[in-house]
């Protein structure tokens, strides 16, 4: 079981560090994308760092996550290697998917990352399947599925929650309600204020947390994880958060109001932590500076690694289509 957060400054530091790592990764990715070094589309999670980090630090290495098209933060928080991630975003042979998947398909099963996924909603039933494995094998693993408020309208989300409830599976459904789904606001997708209310449809608990507050995210997710691990079944955790940027990098965001565009950083989980928690957890200004430096270095190395990695040879295209 995860330790209590209140007097655990090591954990708090890790939460903070990981948020900065994501912040750094996404910022670097945005730059590389704008510079034309990254093909295809990328979907960034700037502004949502507390969700990925708070949720994933409530998990153990043996636990699973399934992620979405907006998955960089989730993968990093669960322990994926920024080098191999960045190389994948560059489409290089050393990337997690050998350049075949790209941003939407980062996975590292060795640390329980079962993959980002380009199909909205599928993260939930895939996690249900992983939770089923844990239940059948009788080990204590838990699966956590990330999804957005847009995904909450997809039928398969309902199917997954219903099935998880019926089978009392060790799974946590983690919704990042980041105000938009593609180009349309929350209200286009959800007729109710809190998605967490839907847990009542399945008879399991639902809770809405402040996605700016990594400690709150951690605390509530941890309860859900403990519940799941103890065989009590699923929980729906909804974090109200905010997507700083567009749907994809380069999105002109014409659908946002001037106010929204002007100052997305009004919602900032990193600043929130620094302001509200650093003192409590004994994190000094110098600790903060050091954490910035450390995470910046990691990301810089990742970019260098990605740049140096070679292209995937196209003669390998038939590899891994079928297992031998």
């Amino acid at each position: 079981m995860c330790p209590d957060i209140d007097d655990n400054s090591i954990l708090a530091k890790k939460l903070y560090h990981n948020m900065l790592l994501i912040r750094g990764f996404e910022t670097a990715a945005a730059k590389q994308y704008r510079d034309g070094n990254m093909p295809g589309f990328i979907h960034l999670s700037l502004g949502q760092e507390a969700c990925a980090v708070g949720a994933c630090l409530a998990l153990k290495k043996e636990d699973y996550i399934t992620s979405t098209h907006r998955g960089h933060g989730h993968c990093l928080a669960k322990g994926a290697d920024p080098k191999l991630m960045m190389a994948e975003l560059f489409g290089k042979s050393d990337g997690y998917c050998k350049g075949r998947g790209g941003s939407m398909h980062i996975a590292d099963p060795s640390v329980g990352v079962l993959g980002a996924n380009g199909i909205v909603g599928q993260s939930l039933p895939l996690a249900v399947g992983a939770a089923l494995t844990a239940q059948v094998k009788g080990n204590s693993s838990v699966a956590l599925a990330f999804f957005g408020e847009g995904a909450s309208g997809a039928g398969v989300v309902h199917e997954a929650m219903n099935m998880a409830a019926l089978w009392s599976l060790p799974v946590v459904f983690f919704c990042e309600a980041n105000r938009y789904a593609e180009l349309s606001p929350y209200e286009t997708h959800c007729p109710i204020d809190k998605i967490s209310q839907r847990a009542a449809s399945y008879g399991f608990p639902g809770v809405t947390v402040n996605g700016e507050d990594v400690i709150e995210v951690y605390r509530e997710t941890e309860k859900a994880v403990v519940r799941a691990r103890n065989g009590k079944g699923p929980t729906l955790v909804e974090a109200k958060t905010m997507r700083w940027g567009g749907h994809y990098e380069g999105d002109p965001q014409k659908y946002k109001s001037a106010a929204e565009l002007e100052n997305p950083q009004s919602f900032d989980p990193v600043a929130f932590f620094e302001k509200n928690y650093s003192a409590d957890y004994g994190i000094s200004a110098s600790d903060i500076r050091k954490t910035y430096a450390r995470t910046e270095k990691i990301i810089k190395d990742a970019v260098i690694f990605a740049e140096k990695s070679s292209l995937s040879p196209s003669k390998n295209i038939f590899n891994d289509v079928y297992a031998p």
Partner: protein
Amino acid sequence: MARIKYFQALQNAIQSEMERDENVVLFGEDVGESGGIFSQTRGLYKQFGSCRVRDTPIAENGFVSAAVGAAMTGLRPIVEVGFEDFLTACMDPLVNQAAKLRFMLGGQVTVPMVVYTFGGGGLNAGPQHSQSFVSWFSQVPGLKVVLPATPADVFSMTKAAVRDDNPVIVLLSKKLIGSSGEVDTDKNNFDIDLESAYVTDHGDDVTLVAFGAMVTAAIEARSKLAEIGCNAEVVNGCCANPYDIATIKTSVKKTGRLAVVHEAHLPCGPGAEIIASLVEEDTSIFKLPPIRITPPFAPSPFAPNLEREYLPSGESIFRSVSSMLNRHS
């Protein structure tokens, strides 16, 4: 060897694979305590318990995707989707997840799972309960697709499918559910691979390639053709991803004449693939124009008299093949 029915062969195969490997689990609608709507899973719940044999809610998308998630993490799920027509509800987990994940994640995972379903016509089940979508899955790299035509096929193909490390779709025939055949249920070394067609009856005059329930019809047609002095070779196509073109080619090289019979519709069906593959290699392989025998391009009708005309049968195959031979002799 035992004489058992098609649905029992399925049950036996699942049972013996579940005995062999505790990672094999079974789920689907009503596969549990009730034993399945065709009794195809009878006894499994009792033998293996509620953890390994589960009734799902009606959520094909969700539970097939859950099978993918389970397969990625160490189980080997067998999933029933009762009617082939309902595969429309789970194309996403089959095509966008199961088939692609290994490739897409750079080889980091395997997805060993089996989806079996009952398809095709013959029970007057109407337009939404009689379809054959086989060629959809022929189009999807990463999947394997088999169509058992006999209880022996069901037994060996299902067992081989469970042991395969890839997602395999087993397209069973509703019409054959109660049909019987000899099966060596004690056999346990599954050297058969999932990619081989085989000749059921030899002949020199014309090759009939058939899939699933159509194999029986083709064999019937062969008897009728024999009466008019035509010695047909019948090939059970067996698999539709990949197609075993080599076995088919060997036969057509000998006979020079080909009729392909399937329940899937004509355009872009298995017949198209087989004919194109052969002519691509050798434009002179056909002594006569090959033919495809399929249902007309309309949904499957409910009324027995309509469905009888609709589906290829021994009689209609005989008519088509003999008119093919006559037209050109």
